């Protein structure tokens, strides 16, 4: 009980707040959001997206384009292959009839879907030169010769081998062993999809029937010893990327970007833009109202005039025009939002400050010789600031939406990732009319969720701080 009395004001507020269920929900979501921002690398599937890679097309080239989320497989009758990456191959050495001693890197891929992956991509970082002898062993024992590729003049460069583009003729040769004359006459190596050949049951109609052959596939990459023995040739970070038809938690967009990554990376910006802008602008508005009321007279009149000019400006349209003409960075956009949206709480604060300045404790402070600014900051502001917390929380959603709207129009800061920008790309690519819902629903839903979080907090605080609205 004694502790309660000592910092009673906060304790009292917390006791009231605890009873507001929606306020607690808001607090909970906010806590989770802050945790996600702090531990962002743990949640990001693509870690280096924040280093300007969101708009780097080659960074995303191994992904599938416009793939739905992986969990959509639950609702479809034909299961699609999911995008996966294999990082650690099994390494062994064996004897090859043509090349002698070879080092074999093998990846095991358990294929259990109805629709095969779009591509198998082999990637590595290499120096010097390298020779890849690649083959795919199928569950039925047949071997698809994927290809032989020689790389040279490398200096810690990325090497990339895509089955879909680089192994078409080999896959066609494989199909020739089984398919009927008629089927072969109607196709050539440019019309078949290598992955369909590799992942289908063999037979005379294998090019058209495409019956999936499920089981464990083994992709082997052999590197001859004359390459591995030379210490100038380095091969590291060898990995197999299976480019599925469905991908990740939230799918990919038509630029092959992982949407979940964009959502997680956009969270910190939404929180930061929303909180920083509204806290600064509400604080400014509160101080403006207090100063206007405390000084009164000419100061009050002129400050009210300036207030009315700013209150008479429609913020969103002006933001659009400013952003379209000056193409500002996010910092300037935030500055402009502060300059034009501090007006919200001025009038209420001003009228409250008019009452407070007549109170006896202010008189007493004056009599004791306190200066004007000391009275404003030490005596009046501390009483009025708690009321502004609710306004701050309620201003956050609007700010987030303002930024998102600017981004939607294509006026966002291109050096950062925001949810509005994701929606801008979706809108530009006609995602709504093509039914790419996984591109449109999540960003907007998260904007709305962040808005709801702060609305929960703001309304709960408002209810506690304005006792007239209490129903109990």
């Amino acid at each position, binding site marked *: 009980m004694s502790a309660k009395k000592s910092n009673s004001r906060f304790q009292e507020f917390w006791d009231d707040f605890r009873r507001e269920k929606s306020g607690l929900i808001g607090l909970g979501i906010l806590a989770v959001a802050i945790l996600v921002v702090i531990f962002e690398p743990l949640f990001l599937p693509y870690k280096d997206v924040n280093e300007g890679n969101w708009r780097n097309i080659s960074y995303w080239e191994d992904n599938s384009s416009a793939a739905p989320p992986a969990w959509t497989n639950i609702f479809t009758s034909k299961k699609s292959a999911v995008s996966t990456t294999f990082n650690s191959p099994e390494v062994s050495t064996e004897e090859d009839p043509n090349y002698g001693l070879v080092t074999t890197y093998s990846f095991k891929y358990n294929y259990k879907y109805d629709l095969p992956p779009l591509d198998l991509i082999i990637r590595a970082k290499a120096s010097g030169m390298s020779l890849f002898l690649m083959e795919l062993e199928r569950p039925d024992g047949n071997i698809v010769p994927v290809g032989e590729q020689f790389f040279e003049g490398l200096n810690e460069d990325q090497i990339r081998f895509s089955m879909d583009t680089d192994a078409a003729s080999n896959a066609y040769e494989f199909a020739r062993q089984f398919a009927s004359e008629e089927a072969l006459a109607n196709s050539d190596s440019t019309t078949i999809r290598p992955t369909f050949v590799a992942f289908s049951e063999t037979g005379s109609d294998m090019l058209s029937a495409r019956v999936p052959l499920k089981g464990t596939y083994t992709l082997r990459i052999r590197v001859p010893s004359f390459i591995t023995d030379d210490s100038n040739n380095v091969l590291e970070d060898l990995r197999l990327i299976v480019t599925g038809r469905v991908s990740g938690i939230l799918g990919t967009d038509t630029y092959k970007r992982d949407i979940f990554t964009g959502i997680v990376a956009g969270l910190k910006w939404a929180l930061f833009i929303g909180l920083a802008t509204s806290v600064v602008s509400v604080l400014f508005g509160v101080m403006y109202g207090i100063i206007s009321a405390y000084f009164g007279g000419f100061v009050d009149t002129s400050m009210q005039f300036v207030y009315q000019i700013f209150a008479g400006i429609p913020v969103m349209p002006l933001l659009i025009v400013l952003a379209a003409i000056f193409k500002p960075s996010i910092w300037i956009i935030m500055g402009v939002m502060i300059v034009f949206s501090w007006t919200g709480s001025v009038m209420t604060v001003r009228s409250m400050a008019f009452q407070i300045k007549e109170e006896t404790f202010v008189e007493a402070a004056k009599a004791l010789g306190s200066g004007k600014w000391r009275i404003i900051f030490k005596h009046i502001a501390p009483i009025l600031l708690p009321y502004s917390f609710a306004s701050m929380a309620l201003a956050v959603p609007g700010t987030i939406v303002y930024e998102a*709207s600017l981004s939607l129009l294509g006026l966002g800061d291109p050096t950062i990732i925001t949810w509005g920008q994701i929606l801008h790309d979706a809108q530009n690519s006609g995602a709504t009319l093509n039914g790419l819902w996984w591109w449109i629903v999540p960003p907007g839903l998260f904007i709305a969720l962040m808005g709801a979080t702060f609305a929960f907090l703001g309304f709960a605080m408002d209810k506690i701080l304005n006792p007239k609205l209490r129903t109990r």
Partner: protein
Amino acid sequence: MYKWFALKRILRGLFMFVLLMFIFSWLFNQVTEKTQRDQIDERIKQESMRLKNVRPEQMLEWRLNREDQLIKLYRLDRPMMERVLYRALRGVTFDFGDSTVIKSGKGEREVRAIIFEALPRTMVLFTTAAVIQMLIGISLGLKKAQKPGGKLDKATSFTTMLVFGMPSWWLAMMLILLFVYVLKLFPSGGLNSVPTPEGFMFFLDRLKHMALPLLTLVLLGFWGMSFTIRNIVLTILQEDYIMSARARGIPERKVLFGHTLRTAAPPLVTMVLLGLLGSIGGAIIFEGIFSWPGLGNLYWIAVQQNDIPVLMGDLAITTALWQGGLIVLDLTYGFLDPRIKVGGKA
């Protein structure tokens, strides 16, 4: 006197509008002048192509003369403050010259024609939505205030907070996804179908195109309104005279509609109109999602085409609408609350 109060308020609004136009003119001075110079160059190029049988020296001289003439016409040779003031005054009459790319439906290049073509479309959409929102908002708000803390009140208050930060343009995208892509019930955008039907069918066709934009505005609009109304009504219900009215045995309906709503009217109207103004100022770009060719859509096109004169004109008309809304707000408030009229000298 209400007459003088109204006159004063309108004059103050006009003054504010002129002042804002001056600020904008000053703020965007550089870019407007650059556009004007580009437009002059373009015009001279076009005109010089029509000249025939002239020697190069003559052509050069004609060009320089013409350029001088046009620069004088646009007053680009005058000192900066005069240019800013001149353009601000032109801006007050929405005269922003010709657009650089955008044309009106009839093919006009004049910015004034373009924005006044878009204005009625936005007005129709937003006023219809406003009326529907108000009807739903007021009735729901009263219902909520009658049983505060009840199931209905709690559920709707929760939804209010849930949609508080939802961007209207995102809801628009969602509705298109649902009603256009999945259900194929409504067209995805535009004013009318092509070819445009005539007579009564024209009206139906227009309504069909308006359905989704309207639905978006209404679905998001009435929640906040009903919440505000609930709070205002609740505050009044705690007043002493309401308690005495109830004690006198006046029926609850009469207390609610006669006593409460009459007192609640001024703040209620303020809140509702302010909310509507906010939606025009903030949600206007949602028109672009439906390609509803109003002022909001004009922002989209002007931004994409980088058409500065149209952008300035659009900003001017939105500011005028905003100021007009504020005037209407104060006038209604003064009309409903007799204490305001005398200018606070009660």
